[in-house]
């Protein structure tokens, strides 16, 4: 750290824009990289949201011809790929990057340069994906953006069925961003294992840190097979390989296994950080320590392990043997047990507390409710015979959006408000935040509650239009109306964050009277986070400071 940088921090206004941008592009600071991840994700959230809106407008009535089938198929492929790989993953990594070093009393991640490299790899992946709109035609005049679906089942991805370069851009995009994801995951795991401040044993880490440790491990295990599969697909397409090329004796089913052995742990890669956020916000706003900390840790690690053995529940309809189907019913249902334990522990944390429903807590309460519903519809899908009806229907689409939007995105919105004062030093506007909550809450429920019904009435996913007289029409209208509420909610969020950043009241270092280490440093935290590396004696070091007469370490 040179004196030069310190000087620059003291006179932020006078620096020219190019210099400031240069600092952001070349930064290896975990906080800036965290913010880059989050801003990157928000840009892609807009893109994915527009794609969703196009689909919903097309489906508002049967036999609609707003977009062509080709365009619609690109929309759902791009929407899924964007939302998973370039919105949800970067959001998760962004918060992990920003918060983990601060919460363990470290000055940066273990490998700052790897951190920057990983972010830029992810960014490159996003660029590849969207460049396909221009470059996907290749020399063949076919293609455009990829249209093979976000899980790109073989053999639709072979050159026979996918001419041009659209599938190649999809493959490269996931290959490159996958390398970035594994880099960041290794960084998170190493940071947590090696960089904790004095006194912070594994058992004294905040839950958020424990959960991100699990997430990091899962990313390494889950993303690697996906990266391998992308390489195999490239070999198939350009070097005459036949891994997935069923016409030449390859196996379409092997691709499914590779994809879902990534795809299911991936759900928990996204969900566990959402659990992490809830596990920080619910205690602070209930004014109580988290209930059953050791059980919460155990349940998380159990979810991590079990989630590696459930992937084939995405494949109940592909004609596995009855034995295999039975096994995956059991493993999938087993995951409901640790998940249920987590819900009960959050409830017990609220029980007997003094709950203050500021925006972060409103989002986390909605998270609890929606995660409960998502988990229960998940149980219905886990019963394989029921899945033979529900799988690949709009019921399934509604279920996983309940997980990703209703649970994960709601928790992340809560995190935006909870840590906004820390990141910017400014307080957000509470009444605008509540307005966003209600807009998004209403929109979410209009869209995703009613989306279950056409699925139960036989409507499959990924159809650009449908026949009248199937009893699906009215539900599709309601589902589409909900989109506008959600879009308005996101715009209100963006406006609130921007407005508060420029006009907000100073927040102070600890506006929530919270207990973890990030609130012990200034807002925004200085580079290198802590002037003096803190020493902790319990899971809630700031509680100990604020209540010297009744510190936590007496009970842990």
């Amino acid at each position, binding site marked *: 750290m040179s004196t030069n940088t310190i000087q620059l921090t003291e006179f932020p206004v006078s620096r020219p824009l190019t210099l400031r941008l240069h600092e952001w592009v070349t930064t290896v600071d975990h906080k800036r990289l965290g913010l880059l991840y989050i801003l990157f994700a928000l840009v892609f959230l807009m893109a994915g949201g527009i794609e969703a809106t196009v689909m919903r407008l097309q489906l508002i009535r049967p036999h609609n011809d707003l977009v*062509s089938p*080709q365009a619609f*198929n690109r929309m759902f492929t791009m929407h899924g790929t964007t939302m998973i790989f370039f919105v949800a993953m970067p959001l998760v990594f962004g918060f992990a990057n920003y918060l983990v070093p601060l919460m363990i009393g470290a000055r940066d991640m273990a490998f700052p340069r790897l951190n920057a490299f990983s972010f830029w790899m992810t960014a490159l992946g996003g660029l590849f994906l969207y460049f396909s709109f221009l470059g996907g035609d290749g020399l063949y005049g076919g293609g455009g953006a990829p249209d093979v679906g976000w899980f790109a089942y*073989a*053999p639709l991805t072979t050159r026979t*069925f996918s001419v041009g370069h659209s599938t190649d851009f999809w493959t490269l995009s996931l290959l490159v961003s996958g390398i970035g994801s594994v880099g960041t995951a290794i960084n998170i795991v190493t940071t947590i294992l090696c960089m904790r401040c004095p006194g912070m044993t594994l058992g004294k880490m905040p839950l958020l840190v424990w959960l991100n440790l699990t997430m990091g491990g899962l990313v390494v295990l889950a993303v690697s097979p996906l990266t391998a599969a992308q390489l195999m697909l490239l070999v198939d397409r350009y070097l005459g390989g036949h891994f997935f090329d*069923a*016409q030449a*004796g390859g196996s*379409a089913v092997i691709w499914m296994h590779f994809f879902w052995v990534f795809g299911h742990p991936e759900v928990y890669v996204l969900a566990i950080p959402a659990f992490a956020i809830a596990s920080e916000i619910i205690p602070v706003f209930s004014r*109580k*320590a988290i*209930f*059953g900390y*050791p*059980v919460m840790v155990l349940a998380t690690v159990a979810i991590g392990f079990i989630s590696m053995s459930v992937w084939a529940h995405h494949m109940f*309809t592909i*004609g596995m043997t*009855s034995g295999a189907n*039975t096994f995956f*019913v*059991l493993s999938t*249902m087993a995951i*409901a*047990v640790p998940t*249920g334990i987590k819900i*009960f522990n959050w409830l*017990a944390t*609220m029980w*007997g*507390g*003094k709950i*203050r429903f500021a925006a972060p807590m409103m989002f986390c*309460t909605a998270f*609890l*409710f929606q995660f*409960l519903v998502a988990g*229960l*519809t998940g*149980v*219905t899908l*886990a*019963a394989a*015979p*029921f*899945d*033979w*009806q529900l*799988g*690949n229907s709009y019921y399934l689409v509604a279920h996983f959006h309940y997980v990703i939007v209703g649970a994960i995105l709601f928790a992340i919105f809560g995190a935006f408000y909870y840590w906004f004062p820390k990141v910017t030093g400014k307080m957000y506007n509470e009444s605008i935040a509540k307005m966003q909550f209600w807009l998004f809450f209403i929109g979410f429920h209009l869209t995703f509650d009613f989306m279950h019904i056409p699925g*139960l009435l*036989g409507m*499959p996913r990924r159809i650009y*239009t449908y026949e009248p*007289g*199937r*009893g699906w029409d009215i539900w599709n209208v309601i589902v589409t109306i909900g989109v506008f509420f959600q879009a308005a909610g996101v715009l209100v969020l963006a406006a609130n964050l921007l407005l508060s950043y420029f006009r907000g009241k100073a927040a102070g270092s600890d506006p929530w009277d919270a207990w973890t280490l990030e609130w012990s440093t200034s807002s925004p935290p200085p580079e290198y986070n802590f002037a003096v590396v803190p020493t902790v004696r319990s899971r809630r070091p700031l509680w100990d400071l604020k*209540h010297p007469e009744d510190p*936590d370490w007496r*009970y842990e």
Partner: protein
Amino acid sequence: MQISPTNIFAPASTPADSVFSLSIFVILTVTGIFIVVCALLTYAAVKFRIRRSDDHSEPAQVYGSNQVELAWTVIPVLIVIALFLASARVIASVQDAPKPSSALEVIVIGHQYWWEYRYPKLNIVTANELHVPVSDPAHPTPTFMTLLSADTDHSFWVPRLAGKTDLIPNHPNSMWIEPHETGLFLGQCAQYCGTQHAKMLLRVYVQPRAEFDRWVQEQQQVSQSSASAGERVFQSTACVNCHTVAGTPAKGLFGPDLTHLMSRDTIASGAALNTHEKLRLWIQKPDALKPGSKMPAMGLSDRDLDAVTAYLETLR
């Protein structure tokens, strides 16, 4: 009144029946859990809200309780075991059911974006509209289907008859139905298979035994050459590369068999009714009915178009 012809909760066939009973059990169980947990959440959120008169003291800090943790671990474990056993039973009863000798055998082949049906023992080939006999409990006549794919993945899903099973190239699958109601049952491809996945519709005609036998007899007949102008156009253009008309030189296999085209209610895999106008339009400009389908626009003159349409209309 029927809310939907594809309602999964209105089963009319055996596998769909057993899935339906399981689904009711599962739904009741999760609804019970939902009510209990939701009530607890609502109670906590209302009862433990901070009061205006609050003295700003911190509430009692409770760190956990092993007894409580044990309780809410054991109860879910028991529920999971019950749901698992119920599911395992239905899996076995559907997947491991023996095939009776009275079963009708059909080979279903998925194509981009239509269905080919072959009845190997009856020597029938048809497309897009599957005919099966209704099954009488005294003399069960279930239909056992072998599922194949000619190109990409597809999925056979007629919700009122059975759950879906995928058709995967190089990976033969099977499924069976035993309908106990006659009528027309609708469905559609449920695994994304390319541009026109949406209009790869399924129609299953469950018929009384006598009616089914009559249909079989009709389908087994081979048409006679009419030597009409339309037939000459048909046989001298690319039509014959993809379509078969049994008993004539047309022996193409990429498209639907047209031998008994007029016995079908729809064309283009259910995308349009089989009327004179639609049939003519389909030959002239397939993209008007089903953009992106593999049927090419034939570029025929109006006279040839009328002749071919007239010829096809003789294929009963």
